[in-house]
């Protein structure tokens, strides 16, 4: 089985969010970038398939050279090959279209992407990719088992979960639950040394167009100070009469 894991290069979850150039660009100054957490669960599950079922695992990212340390981390975790599609990621459609070309050229059986990235939260790349390559698609996937080309997956739904049957080729929108957080891998020194020798192939983009344009950013209005209360009676009164919340 050939597996491709989509890796989004995102600000660390604790990053302060600021903008520059008239609030049109994300301010990367002092920001640590990491593998998108939802993708990290997918990468770890892919490594399980590699080790238990003999799959090959490649990782892909759409972005400039600045994303290479993130791809190297994925190699250090155990991916075989990294592919960087050399163009800035502009919107979900353009990213999906660029990855679709790689999937079609290389013939992957399974593509795992995070259900969404933690920067733009679009939640559209895995679904759009599945639509573009005409593969089956399971979103918000929290469990995945594959026997030959037969797939059993569990996905989170509002208020519960649902188990589905499907087949390869398949695209997964994965998240926490695909593996336990305690099973996530931290690159060790041997992995980091080996990653240096693994191929990181830079592929020129097809020049896919976008469907949306990010015009500007804004931050939420500053919040007033908390109202501290001493009694539950006062709290209920405020929630009822002031906040109109109960």
């Amino acid at each position: 089985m050939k597996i491709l894991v989509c890796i989004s290069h995102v600000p660390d979850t604790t990053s302060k969010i600021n903008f520059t150039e008239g609030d049109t660009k994300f301010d990367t100054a002092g920001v640590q970038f990491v593998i998108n957490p939802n993708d990290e669960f997918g990468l770890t599950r892919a490594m399980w398939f590699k080790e238990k079922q003999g799959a090959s695992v490649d990782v892909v990212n759409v972005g400039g050279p600045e994303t290479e340390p993130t791809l190297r981390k994925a190699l250090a975790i155990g991916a075989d090959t990294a592919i960087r599609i050399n163009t800035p990621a502009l919107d979900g459609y353009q990213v999906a279209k660029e990855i679709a070309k790689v999937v079609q050229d290389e013939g992957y059986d399974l593509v795992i992407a995070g259900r969404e990235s933690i920067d733009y939260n679009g939640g559209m790349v895995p679904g759009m990719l599945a639509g573009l390559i005409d593969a089956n698609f399971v979103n918000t996937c929290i469990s995945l088992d594959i026997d030959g080309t037969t797939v059993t997956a569990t996905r989170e739904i509002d208020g519960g979960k649902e188990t589905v049957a499907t087949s390869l080729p398949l695209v997964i929108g994965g998240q926490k639950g695909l593996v336990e957080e305690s099973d996530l891998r931290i690159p060790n020194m041997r992995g980091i040394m080996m990653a240096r020798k693994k191929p990181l192939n830079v592929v020129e983009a097809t020049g896919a167009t976008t469907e949306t344009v990010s015009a500007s950013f804004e931050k939420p209005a500053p919040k007033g100070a908390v109202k501290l209360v001493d009694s539950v009676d006062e709290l209920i009164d405020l929630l009822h009469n002031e906040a109109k919340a109960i």
Partner: protein
Amino acid sequence: MSVLVYTESENGDFKKTAFEVASYAKGIADMMGTSVTAVAVNGGDASALGNYGVEKVLNIKNDSLTAFNAAAYAKSIAQAAKAEDAKVVVVSQSANAKYLAPLLSIELEAGYASNVVALPESVAPFKVKRTAFTNKAFNNTEITTAIKIVGLGKNAYGLKESTGAATTEEFNPEVGDLGVTVQSVDKATDKVSIADAEVVVSAGRGLKGPENWGMIEEMADILGAATACSKPVSDLGWRPHGEHVGQTGKPVAANLYIAIGISGAIQHLAGINASKIKVVINNDPEAPFFKAADYGMVGDAFEIVPQLNEKLKAFKAANN
């Protein structure tokens, strides 16, 4: 030309999100000088949609679509959009709508903006405001394709009643190969889900152990709320992963979010920022959550919560 809205139902009953997206679609239709058509899959009595601005309902009656199927639903909605010459399609941000919207986008070659929080700033160009960076910022996005898909964030627009009546027509799209089939559904039917909840009662490590969640569930029962938890609590296995709220868990856009014994890590706060009123109960006056809260009580949860439950019960009895 029309604005098309996908109205979700469960066992034939339209969900609250159906009325919310219909209200929003009516707002866009008014800006564009057009009308709203709803597409429903195995929906029941559609007359209530008329109260929220829908003029026509295309009802798809198809036994093969009894269980949700993202690809088949997307294909069906796409055919409805083409039949109605829809320039804008509005969907909710339920788990199912988020699942089908990107597939619909490919079917219609339509740009998609998710997590939208307000009516468009303008419809030509079509500019919407959406949340980004897990609610730590907003992104103003222009959709440049001929057809636009808008994913309306939960509780972002509210219900807006309007006078009118909806006519219902049967619609029979080609659904194609299902590709993915549902084998089993495990859903707690007697509990409010986080996605549907107006009120969420959430607790953290301050509760010391899973055996102490009885008082949290009691408060949720009294308020008709969903229960939720912080990440360490789900990591410790005290509560199911589906209750984990935060950056890698579920986002919550409730009207009221009550956080008990949660200190307020930045990832947790990112997940609840879209909620309107936040109440924090914590014994540490320095807990960062107080900075994000509207109302706070400093004190021992094991003393405050039982008292609050009793008073809330009395309040509910007096006000219902």
